[in-house]
């Protein structure tokens, strides 16, 4: 090796290091190396530091050894004498058994903590703790909370008993009327293991919040169990990780961990039916919504609607002309921070982008009030919502003609769009 070569190597190494450092400075909301809950921590501890270090050592020994052997054994063209042979060694049985058995033993030893961690990740929470059903469909996630503790969300026919009759219904479409249904954002209390039952309405999806746990597939026709737990309040973003067709790249989600008492307040609000708005524009929007949107979306309202206003669909009336058979429940739309599969913000401003993890968990409960205050730093994202309602497939790859995703409503006038958006804003 000559001088200039070693210099250029040094230069490459230091340039490489600078690049690594530069990239570390960026925010990494999905980083698997920053676990924020015990399950993700289990995985992290399994690999760090032991396994990664063993692998690094093997890498250095094998690749470094190879390069050393090549550099030392190298014969240039001038030196090369075809009649001169190196020692002709055909092998060394002891050595070869050695490097067969040694890695075998090493891997056997490492398999013990590995197997232990597999079972640890499967661990269930205690009876009575929060269970959530997670349902994937093209291209968003739905969450159902068992609020009343009536034995989960499996009371499909709503008769108050979970029995065989409920099992006749496809699990992923059954709905207990008392339970809370939300979309895109999974809200959980901190320091509590939340068990998930993962299902799919159409194709295979995969639920993944990297900082809280590994991923688990949502397979149609099957129910898979998994769990998440967060140590600190905050926002943890995730991404569908099984290719699920056209808009797979824009099927994102996040988990928002709130302090337990805040979570209780959130859940209480979510369990309430939507209030009929009093504002004229929002009321007009409700009318338009009832005419155009309720074949797919649900807004749960209590009791009879006021005279002169068309009632909004309830869950049992809801027949979506979509392959998945469902569109997001919008009962408390304005309490969410993102929509459209987690790619656009319902609010903009201090909230940050829906894809990063900047969120003041304290403000999360009061987003709709804050947005009405001039200088709060939060604004309702009416422009994006209007674009979305008018022509959703220009904002996210969808194919409504093949019953995949939201059709466009460009027949609505500018004023009608404003009305619909004010109605959505009233759903807090």
């Amino acid at each position, binding site marked *: 090796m000559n001088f200039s070569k070693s210099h250029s190597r040094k230069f490459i190494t230091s340039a490489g290091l600078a*690049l690594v450092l530069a990239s570390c400075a960026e925010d990494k909301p999905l980083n*698997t190396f920053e676990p924020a809950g015990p399950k993700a921590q289990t995985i992290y501890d399994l690999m760090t530091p032991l*396994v990664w270090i063993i692998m690094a050592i093997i890498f250095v020994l094998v*690749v470094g050894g190879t390069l050393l052997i090549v550099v030392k054994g190298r014969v240039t063209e001038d030196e090369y004498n075809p009649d001169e042979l190196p020692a002709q060694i055909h092998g060394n049985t002891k050595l070869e058994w050695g490097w067969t058995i040694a890695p075998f033993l090493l891997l056997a030893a490492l398999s013990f903590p590995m197997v232990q961690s597999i079972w640890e990740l499967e661990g269930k929470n205690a009876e009575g703790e929060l269970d959530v059903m997670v349902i994937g469909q093209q291209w968003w996630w739905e969450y159902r909370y068992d609020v009343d503790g009536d034995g989960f969300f499996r009371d499909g026919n709503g008769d108050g008993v979970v029995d065989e009759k409920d099992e006749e219904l496809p699990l992923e479409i059954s709905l207990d009327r008392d339970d809370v249904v939300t979309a895109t954002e999974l809200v959980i209390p901190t320091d509590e293991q939340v068990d998930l039952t993962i299902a799919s309405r159409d194709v295979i999806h995969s639920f993944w919040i990297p900082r809280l746990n590994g991923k688990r*597939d949502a397979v149609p026709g099957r129910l898979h169990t998994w769990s998440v737990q967060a140590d600190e309040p905050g926002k943890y973003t995730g991404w569908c990780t099984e290719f699920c067709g056209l808009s*797979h790249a824009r099927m994102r989600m996040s988990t928002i961990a709130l302090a337990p008492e805040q979570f209780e307040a959130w859940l209480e609000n979510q369990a309430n039916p939507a209030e009929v708005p009093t504002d004229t524009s929002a009321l007009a929007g409700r009318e338009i919504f009832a005419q155009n949107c309720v074949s797919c979306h649900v807004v749960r309202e209590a009791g009879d609607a006021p005279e002169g206003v068309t009632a909004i669909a309830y869950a049992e009336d809801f027949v979506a002309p979509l392959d998945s058979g469902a569109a997001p429940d919008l009962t408390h739309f304005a309490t969410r921070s993102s929509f459209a599969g987690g790619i656009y913000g319902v609010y903009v401003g201090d909230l940050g982008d829906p894809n990063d993890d900047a969120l003041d968990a304290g403000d999360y409960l009061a987003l709709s009030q804050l947005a009405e205050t001039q200088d709060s730093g939060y604004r309702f994202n009416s422009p994006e919502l209007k674009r979305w309602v008018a022509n959703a497939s220009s904002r996210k790859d969808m194919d409504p003609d093949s019953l995949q995703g939201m059709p466009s409503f460009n027949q609505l006038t500018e004023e009608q769009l404003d009305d619909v958006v004010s109605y959505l804003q009233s759903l807090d």
Partner: protein
Amino acid sequence: MSENLPAAETTSGSPVSLGAWARPRNPKGILDWLTTVDHKKIGIMYGAAALFFLIIGGAAALLIRLQLAVPADSPEDAIFSGDTYNRIFTMHGTVMIFLVVMPIGAAFANYLIPLMIGARDVAFPRINAFSFWVFLVGGIMLNTSWFLGGSPNGGWFNYAPNTGVTFNPDVGIDYWNIALILTGIGSLTGAINLITTILNMRAPGMTFMRMPVFIWMSLVTQFLLLFAIPVLTVAQVLLMMDRTFDANFFNTTMGGDPLLWQHLFWIFGHPEVYLMILPAFGIVSEVIPAFARKPIFGYPFMVFSGIAIGFMGFGVWAHHMFVSGLGPLSVTAFAVATMFIAVPTGVKVLNWVATMWGGKIILNTAMLFAIGLVTQFTVGGLSGVSHAFASSDTQQTDTYYIVAHFHYVLFGGALFGFMAGFYFWWPKIFGYKLSESIGKANFWLMVIGFNLTFGPMHVLGLQGMPRRMDSYSSVQGFTFWNQVASFGSLILAIGTLLVLHNAFASHRKWVAAGRPNVGADPWDARTLEWMIQSPAPTHNFDTTPTVTGLDELWRRKFNKDEDGNWERVASGDELAQPGNGKGVHLPAPSYWPLALALSMVPIAYGLVYSLWLTIPGAIMLMASMFGWALEPADDLDAPDDHHLEGASA
């Protein structure tokens, strides 16, 4: 053995003309290639077709890197729509695996197996031609989907039910399905052919444990194909039944189970990984001893670890499904099994290193690429072990970490091995060496471009970037390393194209120099194929050599003197057969392999578009099969075939 065949017997009878169509006589030009049954020409055609498809698959890869070079916060920021991108990455994976890596392996196997075992040709020459043509028909059919209604968009893994008619009504999935059934037929017939060839047609004295490592790895590869391909074909037929005839194998609302597809696909798919890499392992097991000037270290360990990989490769498929909800018990079993498959693979790597250890290493391009395989594959192997930690895999699977892993295995492993093979055997195949100066640039650009492209993907994956994503957001922290990868892919593309440039430039130079003879044994190598002239004569060996041990040619060149020192007794060129064999019986060319393959065209398009089209296809198929069966055994009257001269003497 082949040289003992009483060739005279066939010529003593009167010329047979039972066939509907006489065999082509001394075809020239394009007709020669279309009707050939010569394993060397078929091997070259496999290689040429694979390089053509490599350009398509590579262009798709560059489009992927182009799209991901910039984040897209909303669809209008993206270069391609989600739909286009999905089609591009599906075709990239499908083309690279089925139409590039597998056929390059087939190219080497076809060209080299008969030469390295001292045989005249493969066992079933017409079936060999058919295997190639049906592969080519399938490959071209798949690529016509770009123009005829859209290429497939279900990923190379084509998971049900996303590929069912409900969620994917367009014809792309049908193209994927049926084109790959065709290439599968080619792989299967090829496997039977080559297994028979290796088992039955070795030169006298070439026992199993005297076979070159490349032959061993090819044998394992062909057995993997034999048992793995039918599983894929079964899965594809089930999917075709679902899509075309309203069956319900994967339809969950009718009680079908989408995991059935995953199990079938990966029972094929994991052996597939090994059958792509084992030919390259075989190649470097020949290249490294030749240029370290030492025998392969631990030949029996090399052989048995290859066989072990073959067996274990069938027992680890579910590690592709650790997050698909198998249950912890299955996950545990497959995770532990997967960990141990690292053992035989590690043995191979260490034996290559030990082969180089203490050797006199000639660092030419072929050797550089072989060393490239050893080092880059080690990276891929280690990241593979990290997936075997199933709980860790729940974070890594379906992220760019996996993309990095398998590109280190398939590009840094298989393709680097193939490049070593190209540079090593090129003079035997074409009669001239590839330029070393272009070759070194080729290697260094590829190795730098490769690491710049796929190295950052380890980081991206661990930082949470899932794969098969047409876009990512500017706030997710993925921009920087994606840009490095996209930049690297340009270097890699230029580096890869240099091998084509080298082929043409070196050829021009060789022609300008008056086509000098490169010699039978330009590398002072070890195995039988270097005992015949370059390029290899049509009839391979003038007389079938008798084998007395491993590395037969080497044993004939060197002798141990009384002090235990090796001394040369002859050069390869002195030992080489002159290539003027007379009375050699060779299989005659035939139209029927091509005709039979072409009859698949209307059947295949018929299954995509209209079943009526299958009727003319079935008629063509029957006619071709009868033509094939009734074809005269040989064209005995060929007056100017010098190989037949003296055959009856």
